[in-house]
């Protein structure tokens, strides 16, 4: 009997041992092979920065959306670049998806976005000239914003429904917000009135100013575009040129659309340096300069005036950049556009006038240290 008991005990002990053997709360320490294809990681952050802002408190109840949601639109989960999402469904299963996507800068430009939307519903791409013919304006957020309506000609939804897209682009501070409805052709046409009423109801208010990020006006083939699956941290240091970072410039961390960022913080205020690159001419010198002039509180200028007001600066390897110095009453912008091997590189310093005056020599030295 004792033998029997010991056998039974052994069975029970083995069961217990097996069941308690694998603990899920152990910290694992190991050496692992580096990723074979390392995804781009965000830029380094300063080693010691005090917490300037409290993180989101769980008890801070966010206010409702800054627009009136039309009846029948059902709120959906959001993620990534999508800051709001709704769904409209017909009783027979036809549906339309409504999205609000926010991106920093101009997010690829109007043409590339419109062409991407056209492609999604089975339409061919249009040129910049054709785009102007498709563009209308509608009221949104107390001003006029561009509006596009496009109807597909092929059944791209479930292989049986044609699609229609309504889209509006609203610049908001340093960001661009895309309001879009896409879905079954007739359903979207039916919802158009509500869509227009919806964007008309948008209250723009104040955007997040501390994330003010600059992106050059994009060329037609710029890669960035609003997408719910767009990479969230996308700095690829392997494409960066070499440069010498002046003393006092701190790494500004990873920002969408930027290849690198630096920050200057001193008694005069905070300065922001952005480095970005776009294929082609990045929208052109005049368009970018005029956009920057608007940010500095200056009036737009024409090509002839631009020639008079822009200078040139050379990098360490001999590339020539166009330099503009835009002095507003409170804000001053120093910017250089360097065409290089089919791309345009944008180096821009934004900050209070006194700070820029003090940092001007360092900015020039930084640009002159660049080697592609």
């Amino acid at each position, binding site marked *: 009997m004792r033998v029997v008991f010991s056998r039974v005990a052994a069975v029970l002990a083995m069961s217990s041992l097996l069941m308690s053997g694998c603990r899920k709360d152990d910290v694992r320490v190991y050496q692992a092979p580096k990723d074979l294809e390392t995804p781009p990681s965000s830029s380094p952050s300063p080693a010691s920065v005090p*917490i300037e802002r409290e*993180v989101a408190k769980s008890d801070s109840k966010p206010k409702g959306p800054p627009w009136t949601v039309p009846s029948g639109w059902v709120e959906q989960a959001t993620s990534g670049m999508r800051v*709001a999402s709704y769904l409209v469904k017909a009783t027979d299963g036809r549906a339309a998806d409504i999205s609000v996507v926010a991106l920093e800068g101009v997010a690829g430009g109007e043409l590339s976005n419109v062409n991407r939307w056209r492609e999604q519903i089975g339409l061919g791409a249009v040129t910049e000239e054709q785009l102007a013919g498709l563009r209308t304006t509608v009221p949104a957020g107390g001003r006029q914003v561009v509006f596009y309506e496009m109807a597909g000609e092929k059944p791209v939804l479930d292989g049986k429904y044609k699609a229609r897209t309504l889209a509006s682009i609203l610049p908001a501070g340093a960001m661009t917000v895309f309001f879009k409805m896409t879905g079954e052709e007739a359903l979207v046409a039916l919802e158009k009135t509500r869509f227009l009423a919806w964007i008309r109801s948008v209250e723009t208010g104040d955007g997040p100013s501390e994330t003010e990020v600059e992106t050059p006006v994009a060329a037609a083939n710029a890669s960035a575009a609003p997408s719910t699956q767009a990479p969230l941290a996308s700095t690829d240091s392997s494409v960066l040129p070499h440069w010498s970072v002046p003393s006092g410039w701190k790494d500004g961390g990873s920002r969408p659309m930027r290849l690198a960022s630096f920050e200057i913080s001193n008694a005069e205020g905070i300065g922001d340096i952005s480095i970005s690159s776009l294929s082609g001419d990045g929208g052109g010198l005049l368009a970018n300069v005029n956009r920057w002039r608007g940010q500095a509180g200056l009036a737009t200028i024409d090509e002839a005036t631009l020639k008079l007001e822009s200078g040139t600066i050379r990098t360490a390897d001999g590339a020539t950049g166009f330099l503009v110095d835009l002095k507003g009453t409170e804000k001053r912008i120093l910017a250089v556009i360097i065409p290089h091997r089919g791309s345009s590189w944008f180096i821009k310093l934004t900050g209070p006038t006194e700070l820029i005056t003090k940092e001007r020599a360092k900015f020039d030295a930084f640009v002159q240290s660049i080697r592609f």
Partner: protein
Amino acid sequence: MLKTLTQFLSSLRLTVVLLACAIAVVFFGTLGQTSDGLYVAQQRYFRSWFSYWTPHDATFPWIPLPGGYLVGTLLLANLTVAHVTRFKWSWNKSGIFMTHIGIILLLVGQLLTDMLARESVMSFREGESRNYSESSMDFELAFLQDSGSNQLDQVIAFPANLIKSGTELQHPLLPFSIRVREAFENATVRVRGPMVDSNRPPASTQGAGRSMIIESSAAKRGMDDRNVPGSVLEMIDGGRSMGTWLGSGILRAQQIETASGTWRMELRPVREYKPFALTLIKTTHEVYPGTEKPKNFQSRVRIQNLDSREDREVDIYMNNPLRYSGYTFFQFQMGREQLEQGGRGTSALQVVQNPSWIAPYLGCIIVGLGLLVQFGIHLGKFISRRKA
């Protein structure tokens, strides 16, 4: 005392009660899936010693239940003790003996599968290589530093269930501690939009979270749903705050600069590294003409194993998994990335490692043979009696 215990454990009544309990566990466990989802229901009803079932509206009291582990262990003990104490070997009972051995093997095999089998997923885009697979349910907060070798990273990985609001995580190899300011089982992390988020501060003061927000989402329990954990983590170096970082399952690695070097932080699915690499060469996604019904999902992958100097290409498709180095790779999912990201084909392989995979097959074969033998013996006796 010993005699009483042995009589209890070898009792046929216990067998009947345990089988009834097993039926109840399966019944309520199946009902529980509707509210808890498959994964949670498995943990709650089957991978537990005790559980209870609560109806949806919870207007009447919960029903206490034995857990799957308790029923399985007692059934195993019941069968084993009954077999050892009561069974007397003879050729006439050889079929019963085999059947008992087969059932014991099934029970032990199931226990071993539960303990040892691992399932994970290897996802990649065409042209990408992977030397690891990832858990589809569990996350870890990993800190990585270059180990000094070109090939290796030093990894310190905290399981996600340690990341709870208010806790502080430490490890002797980390030059800083991690204070968990907020932690969510399922979180929405998105760009901090103008207008929409003007009254919400950024999720963190450092890294990618500076231009994002995080908010809690309802935990998902569905079979095809997946929770993406999120957290706000404050790094403390020698009592001094280094700032806060946003940890999220949708963000790529973020860097943390310290006096002793650069670390990378990533909240990611738990990884299991392999001693070989697979590269996705090509995906084939065929549908029946005129429909969206899948006809063939096929991934052509290249296996590279430096140890065995193996370098070959194989096709993985439905009902044709790759069995390699103790792992089985099943074609799981297939898709295509967005056009602006390159439009490449994507594939996900389910990676299964089960050292005890043979046990249920052997158990069933032995039970089947045992029943055949036992019925054969009875049939033989019956025929002999009729002839007589």
